[in-house]
């Protein structure tokens, strides 16, 4: 992909929105809106990017002067996030998802059509500056791929035909709205605040997704309880974090409540970036009131007055919707001061958008990002519950966890524990995608087996299932009797199904490796490099140059990642390790047998450049 952050100013090609002095006034107004506060740098950059389509060096210099921080401190944030750009990215910036599911659903053809119609390659902007084509990691639409973001608007189920229409419309000067012709999605997707073609695809409802939720019920209940008792109820429910790591939620709250300090924060982690996950998108669309009520309950329990809903950039199409829900909550006194009449129960929420970085799903990276910095995970200890946002005690909970809490408060911990298994109580939302009849969101009780799931979603001829996204496990049919639970197959809820047509090494493992390489923050020497080495090895094996030793080295080298700081680094080799463990024969089929060394050196390739330079045909002997 073309670098959006050129090394020198000379490389900047100023496109259709040439730099003008009037831009300075605009950026000054943006900075003023955020009170000249450097910890709001993310918002300043997001607004600037959305205003101009890019953030050129003179603007960076202006932000630097106004905030009195070094230019390099702005550039470190700017250059970290995928959706920021230092140069123009076209009047219409198209980010086409490149996840494994998108590829399976026909991305390649869509991409080629886009290039043909737009007249430029991926990573580039068309000559007239109208269209920029870029790739991006999973955008949370795995149940309706191939999908793309065009200026933040989601286009799903793309086909070459649709792409031709869209580009034709944009060239004809139509508005983006007018290019959406399929009609709008179901539920809130069709409401004026969203107006999106995204489908919810809710396939199975359980207690969380059940109809009949009444906003404010849980709040009215807890204001009659002591905060400690709220925490006790949560602990009793045995609920664990639904983002994937599975830390006991009640315990997290208790530690935070007991942490010294008046000022505390509740974060909701809506940065779901694990490829194949999209259940939080559905909650944000259909159940945002429940989510915000859950945040307020958490605020009451731990004694926090401020909540931050951190939403991934890919979901900015929900911004107006979420803001109007917050505003509505304030009007009903479910947010704001003296909530539900309870003296001193103050809690309010602001939305923080990300700008494209999977690693920000890690709680301390998410906090760093919300402070306007690069999304680099922090060293722990201290944990966020002791020292988090602005060094204050901070809770970071997953979207689904907070919604579950509302139901736990409403119906009681024993009710919740009556569902699921002994160690894994309650229900789990699954994001199911890939080769099946009914991709979408399913709410199941913990303890479902993979076989149950496959039957439920109409999958046949299944070769493998990726449980828990790229950082999870790739399992084959002999393990489909395993159960989804914290004690067996623990998962944040993503299940990607591959039938027998798929090439697991080329299409799946390689795609996941590329994903981790693109998304590493780079801070740890291990995570910055090992996945790159693994990719080289896998390429060698796929090119039929591999030997037995290459497979062994892949396993050995993967172990080095255990010295990494965060979950991304620790799990980045999982695609390689679990595929070698469970699908060894696929590797064995590709390697050369009876040979213990192959350098992968190719003389013809190596001499091509010098022969071209002097005009010579290489003589091979």
């Amino acid at each position, binding site marked *: 992909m073309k670098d959006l952050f050129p090394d020198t100013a000379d490389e900047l090609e100023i496109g259709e929105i040439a730099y003008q002095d009037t831009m300075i006034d605009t950026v000054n107004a943006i900075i003023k809106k955020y009170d000249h506060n450097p910890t709001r740098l993310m918002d300043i950059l997001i607004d600037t990017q959305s205003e101009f389509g890019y953030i050129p060096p003179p603007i960076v210099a202006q932000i630097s002067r106004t905030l009195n*921080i*070094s230019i390099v401190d702005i550039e470190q944030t700017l250059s970290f996030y995928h959706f920021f750009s230092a140069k123009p990215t076209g009047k219409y910036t198209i980010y086409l998802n490149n996840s494994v599911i998108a590829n399976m659903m026909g991305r390649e053809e869509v991409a080629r059509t886009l290039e043909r119609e737009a007249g430029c390659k991926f990573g580039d902007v068309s000559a007239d500056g109208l269209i920029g084509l870029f790739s991006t990691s999973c955008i949370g639409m795995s149940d309706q791929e191939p999908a793309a973001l065009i200026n933040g608007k989601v286009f799903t189920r793309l086909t070459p035909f649709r792409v031709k229409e869209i580009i034709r419309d944009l060239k004809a000067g139509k508005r983006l709205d007018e290019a959406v012709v399929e009609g709008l999605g179901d539920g809130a997707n069709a409401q004026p605040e969203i107006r999106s073609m995204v489908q919810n695809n809710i396939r199975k409802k359980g207690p969380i997704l059940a109809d009949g939720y009444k906003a404010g019920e849980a709040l009215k209940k807890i204001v009659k309880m002591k905060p400690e008792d709220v925490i006790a109820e949560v602990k009793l429910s045995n609920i664990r974090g639904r983002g994937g790591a599975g830390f006991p939620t009640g315990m997290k709250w208790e530690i935070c409540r007991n942490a010294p300090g008046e000022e505390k924060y509740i974060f909701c982690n809506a940065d779901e970036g694990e490829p194949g996950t999209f259940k939080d998108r559905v909650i944000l669309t259909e159940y945002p009131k429940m989510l915000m009520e859950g945040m307020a309950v958490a605020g009451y329990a731990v004694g926090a007055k401020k909540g931050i809903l951190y939403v991934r950039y890919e979901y900015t199409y929900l911004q107006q919707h979420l803001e109007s829900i917050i505003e509505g909550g304030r009007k009903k006194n479910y947010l704001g001061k003296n909530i539900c009449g309870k003296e001193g129960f103050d809690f309010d929420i602001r939305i923080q958008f990300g700008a494209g970085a999977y690693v920000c799903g890690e709680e301390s990276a998410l906090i760093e990002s919300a402070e306007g910095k690069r999304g680099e995970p922090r060293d722990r200890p201290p944990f966020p519950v002791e020292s988090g946002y602005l060094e204050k005690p901070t809770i970071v909970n997953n979207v689904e966890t907070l919604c579950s809490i509302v139901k736990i408060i409403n119906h009681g911990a024993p009710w919740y524990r009556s569902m699921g298994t002994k160690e894994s109580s309650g229900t789990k939302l699954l994001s199911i995608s890939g080769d099946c009849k009914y991709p979408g969101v399913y709410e199941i009780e913990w303890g479902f087996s993979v076989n149950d799931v496959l039957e439920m979603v109409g999958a046949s001829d299944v070769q493998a299932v990726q449980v828990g996204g790229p950082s999870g496990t790739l399992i084959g049919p002999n393990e489909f009797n395993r159960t989804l639970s914290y004690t067996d197959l623990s998962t944040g809820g993503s299940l990607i199904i591959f039938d027998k047509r798929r090439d697991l090494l080329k299409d799946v493992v390689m795609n996941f490796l590329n994903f981790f390489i693109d*998304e590493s923050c780079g801070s740890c*020497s291990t995570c910055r490099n090992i996945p790159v080495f693994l990719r080289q090895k896998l390429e060698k094996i796929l090119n039929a140059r591999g030997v037995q030793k290459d497979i062994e080295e892949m396993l050995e080298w993967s172990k080095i990642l255990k010295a990494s700081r965060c979950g991304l680094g620790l799990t980045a080799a999982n695609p390689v390790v679990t595929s070698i463990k469970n699908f060894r024969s696929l590797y064995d089929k590709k390697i050369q047998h009876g040979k213990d060394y192959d350098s992968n050196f190719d003389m013809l390739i190596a001499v091509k450049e010098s022969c071209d330079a002097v005009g010579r045909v290489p003589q091979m002997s």
Partner: protein
Amino acid sequence: MSTNGSVIRIIIDGKEYLSRSGVYLIDVARENRIFIPTLCNISGVKPRGACRMCTVSVNGRYMTACTTPVSEGMEIKTNTPDLHDLRKAILEIMFVEGNHICPVCEKSGNCDLQALAYRFQILVPRFPYSFPKRTIDAENPLLVKDHNRCILCKRCIRTIKDEQGRSFFAFRKRGHKLEISIAHHLKDHLNKEIAQRAVDVCPTGALLKKESGYNIPISERKYERTPIGSEIESLKQSVIGDQ
């Protein structure tokens, strides 16, 4: 949990030590003549755990000694065969990640990266050389930044600020494209003293001073005859309360 500063007992490599709680493990080890290799830590500066060299086993979990404060009852292993190989691998990663051509580097013989590789007796890295295309930034009148030799330890980022606390150095981009950028617009604020400090904190030859070089004769270089870490291993045992 004990409060910070109280006297606690910990076990390092099977031996019991007294320390004050809250002190970083790497410092406790150093005081007790145990060398834990590091490339990013600077005593007294907020640690970052960037290089991962100081990874140790704490109650069976791998953690970085530079960022982990000790607490009562911790059982620490600093040098198992697995940790030894892990550190060796990390060093090898750094050698193949950049362009470290020791024969032409002014820092050779005084370089922490090279010295650790000597200590671990690395003869060849197990990983393929990547020969990245990197540049040399010589725009600053006092300093040269050779990106070929940068191991992204963040030492310069963390320690070198101007009188208003503004950064001279920062990370740029991410993942395997990560690099360090220099704030050329602040060059008037970078005086000789700060420049010297920047050169001193750099563990490799990535930051060098202009207009002088090869000041130390070959036979007198820091790691000529004694391995890095031996200065710690030969220290007299410190007494609690001296800290």
